[in-house]
């Protein structure tokens, strides 16, 4: 496991990104269509963050990219279940 302290800036960016998405959800209260879009954008940004982060630390591998893409896909599926059911 990597040391998270070494890459505080990366995690700071991630936390800010996630907080912004929570805020966007709050702003789009009641608009499930827009909330789904926010969810999809957040998931995509998470994949981008993963790729950039692993690229910077030098351990970017196809397996890693697939893992982030699948985590994002799971989150989108959960958003669809909660928002569209």
């Amino acid at each position, binding site marked *: *496991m990597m040391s*998270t302290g070494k890459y505080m800036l990366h*995690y700071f960016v991630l936390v800010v990104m996630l907080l912004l998405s929570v805020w966007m959800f709050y702003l789009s209260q*009641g608009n499930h269509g827009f909330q789904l879009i926010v969810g999809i954008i957040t998931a995509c940004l998470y994949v981008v963050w993963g790729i950039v982060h692993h690229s910077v630390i030098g*351990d970017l591998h196809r397996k*890693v990219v697939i*893992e982030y893409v699948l985590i994002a896909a799971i989150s989108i599926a959960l958003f669809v279940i909660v928002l569209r*059911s």
Partner: protein
Amino acid sequence: MRIIDHIRHYFTPHHSNNFKPKALHSKYLFVYALLFVAVYFFIDSFHRTFPNILGYATDIYVQSLMEDTNLEREKAGLAPVVLNEKLSLAAYKKAEDMFANNYWSHISPKGVTPWDFIVAQGYQYTVAGENLAKNFTTSKNVVDAWIASPTHKANIVKPTYREVGFAVVNGALNGEETTLVVQMFGASSSQIVDSAKKQLPIIVDSFGASIKGETTTLPNDALRVFYGATNKPLVNIPTLTRWFSLIIIAGFIFLLIVDAWIISTKKIIRISGHNVAHILFFITLAIVFTRILPGGIL
């Protein structure tokens, strides 16, 4: 393989699974994503076939909305508002128009304002205001959400309002089953209002032209939804889907924490995504699903 070996293989990093829990391998993550899509289609088709078993619970009544609204006015030291049938009819017509023209807004796509609905019912207002809510389960949730919003609260505790009208109507908005709550406030020109506020019209939002319209009557089939909407399926879909998602998220977070702890203590080096990032991501999803999704106001 013994049960304990299976648990170790699926849920902890071990040499048998290349030091990553099998349950977190890409193949399994892919299967989960497909399963969740299948769950969505299952819920959708089951709801269509058995709406009384799997449906949308609603328990919203005008009486409760009135009581909660007046309770808030009482807290602010104001006189209670009285239920007015014309305002309720205007609220019902507004809800009906929102479903018919598929919009969620104070002004319709055709430019019809709340004041048009009020005037069309023959209510000559001096001041008027509108609060909207959708997708709430109970009357209390609706009023609580309005009170939590400064602009909506300002409407509820506006001293110049004397009367109120409500409509609680079930329908479909953008293909989504919805319970709309329309609350319309007013004080008619026949009432004595604060002379300082005697401007036409004084409205809550930044729009306010009024158009004279025909008085309309409430359709008979609307009566059952006019004063409240109740629907009690065996299983409430929003509750089911929210709990389902939260349990899945909790499962992922637990697995990731156990995995992170083991690889950290055993100093295992592997090519993988970072658990801390995944955990943060899933925690965000949990916050969103628990705190933000229920209902909407306008």
